[in-house]
């Protein structure tokens, strides 16, 4: 899996700062610890020098013990004076055998070593000929300082790495904000909202992109509007001649018996096609109206009452199971949705056999079931397209406008709902409309 750009920027900011600060911390550590150690050694040497002088004076006097005890700087420091055949010590107990022989045999010397589990600086000095003065300075104090220093440096390094990551995240978010806006605008356009635009950009690099995007979207919107207006204009212009044709047709149809034979058949053909033509124009107008201008007037209504009413008006024989559920919608359009589904069932499956309205969680669901041949998987999307005809198994004398289900989908989408068709057991199809319900489950 490839990491997102934002993720990568965040990581590289974090890693970059981690590297830089750890190099700095490492250098600081080395320099500071070396310097402090050298300082400590120098001061130890100086102190030993002073002590040696004092010891030299009272080497053979019996008060050497007390003198040495007075010279020790703490419970952990040790002073040994090794004379041939005599050993005087003070402070923490250390055996001469625990010290490296090299150091003791060849004074003066200086070394850092661990004696009896304690890190010390050992300083040796020759005293009055053949004696050796050894003083061990504990490094505990310094160790504590080092511990503190390293803790500060590690915390600082980690902190700066986190800061770097946060900075990277923020910077990339800021830098990518126009991209996120572009993405959301493009998504809205793809979803059908042609009014989506990008906000004006200050950055000259992005301004060009935003301007281009907006002009493209504008052109697209204009074109879609033009197309819709054209469809609307065409069907509008067709209305007047159609009114004449439909009514002249009705007059002729009443006098059908005066036109026997061929002329009668031709008249029948003509009038039924004129009627279908009229239906098509009406549906086309409705669908192009749904495309552009909006006279959508939502109100809260009880879907079950609406469904019962539509079914009672024309499909009295169809059983209905309806429980109350409130939706916000346009009554006329929802009437239309159900009527079109019922007509569709009549046309393709000898009519609906069951209609139900129920609330499923947060959606209201209408189901129209028929016992016909069903809709093959491959056509389930397609039948909701405009002028999608020729559903296999449909009758030859199809008199629909070819826009019925397209209108259903159009109206349902306008209500922020969904519509689909599925198999019904044991045979037939089930058309399902889901609309957002108002209020919780009843």
């Amino acid at each position: 899996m490839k990491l997102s750009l934002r993720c990568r920027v965040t990581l590289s900011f974090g890693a970059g700062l981690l590297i830089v600060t750890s190099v700095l911390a490492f250098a600081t550590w080395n320099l500071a610890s070396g310097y402090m150690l050298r300082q400590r050694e120098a001061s130890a040497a100086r102190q030993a020098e002073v002590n040696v002088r004092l010891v030299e004076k009272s080497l053979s006097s019996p008060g050497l013990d007390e003198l040495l005890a007075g010279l020790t700087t703490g419970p952990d420091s040790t002073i040994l004076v090794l004379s041939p055949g005599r050993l005087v010590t003070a402070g923490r107990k250390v055996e001469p055998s625990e010290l490296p022989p090299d150091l003791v045999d060849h004074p003066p010397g200086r070394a850092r070593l661990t004696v009896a589990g304690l890190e010390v600086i050992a300083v040796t000095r020759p005293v009055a000929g053949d004696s050796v003065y050894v003083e061990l300075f504990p490094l505990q104090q310094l160790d504590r300082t080092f511990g503190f220093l390293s803790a500060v440096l590690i915390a600082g390094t980690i902190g700066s790495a986190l800061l770097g990551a946060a900075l990277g995240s923020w910077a990339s978010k800021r830098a990518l904000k126009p991209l996120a806006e572009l993405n959301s605008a493009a998504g809205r356009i793809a979803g059908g909202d042609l009014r989506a635009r990008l906000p004006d950009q200050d950055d000259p690099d992005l301004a060009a992109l935003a301007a281009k995007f907006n002009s493209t979207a504008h052109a697209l919107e204009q074109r879609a509007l033009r197309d819709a207006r054209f469809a609307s204009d065409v069907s509008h212009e067709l209305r007047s001649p159609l009114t004449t044709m439909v009514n002249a047709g009705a007059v002729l149809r009443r006098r059908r018996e005066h036109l026997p034979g061929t002329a009668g058949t031709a008249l029948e053909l003509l009038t039924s096609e004129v009627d279908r033509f009229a239906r098509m124009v009406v549906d086309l107008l409705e669908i192009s109206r749904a495309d552009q201008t909006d006279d959508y007037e939502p109100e809260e209504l009880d879907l079950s009452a609406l469904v019962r009413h539509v079914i009672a008006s024309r499909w009295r024989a169809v059983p209905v199971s309806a429980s109350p559920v409130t939706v916000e919608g346009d009554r006329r359009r929802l009437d239309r949705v159900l009527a079109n589904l019922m007509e569709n069932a009549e046309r393709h499956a000898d009519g609906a056999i069951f209609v139900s309205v129920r609330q499923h969680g947060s959606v209201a669901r209408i189901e129209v079931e028929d016992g016909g041949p069903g809709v093959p998987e491959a056509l389930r999307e397609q039948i909701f397209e405009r002028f999608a005809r020729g559903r296999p198994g449909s009758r030859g004398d199809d008199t629909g406008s070819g826009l019925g289900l397209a209108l259903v989908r159009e109206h349902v989408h306008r209500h922020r709902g969904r519509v689909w068709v599925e198999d019904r057991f044991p045979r037939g199809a089930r058309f399902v409309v889901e609309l957002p319900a108002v209020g919780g489950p009843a």
Partner: protein
Amino acid sequence: MCVGVLLVEDDERIRQALSLALSDEGFTVDEASSGEDALRRLETESFDVMLVDLTLPGIDGLEVVRTLRSRGDLPIIVVTARTDARDVIAGLEAGADDYVTKPLMASVLAARIRALLRRRGPGREAVRIGDLEIRPQEGLVHRAGERVHLTRTEFRLLLELAGAAGRIVTREQLLQKVWGYDYFGDTRLLDVHIRRLRRKIEANPDDPALVLTVRGTGYRIRS
């Protein structure tokens, strides 16, 4: 019963075809080709119902409707080529009783006309609601003793509501009983008429005390 229809339409072919088809449906149809022509004829002749196209040369359909409404309660159906809410509402606000959109079929139009001319209403007894007195027999409404002029449709709408005696009357029932709509009930048609009715019988139409809205369902009269 022979119903006299005045058809006002400027497109000659539509006028002829509609006239023929409506005659077939049993109406006596008179034609007028302009608003001026229609108003002139209405001064001397009487008709049972008028069909008027909204887009006419000269005086337009809306003006004709308004003028006629100021003269009396002749039932008017407007014919419009557009289904835009604005046109429809403007026509209804001007005082039309109903509307149809092109391409209209004479059979549908005939059903509309018959529904409009039906005089039947629930109840024969006079009804009192607050200071409102309805006498269905005479077709009269008085408010605080003063006569209120309602159109036939407004009167029937009021009667339907009053007949339910305070129970809710759904939109569907009203559309069906008053206008003869089976389905595709047009909310705008009902809303505009309720608005017109309130303007005439309510003391304060913006805060109705007699005709109450039942949200999501319909209307009821204060019992």
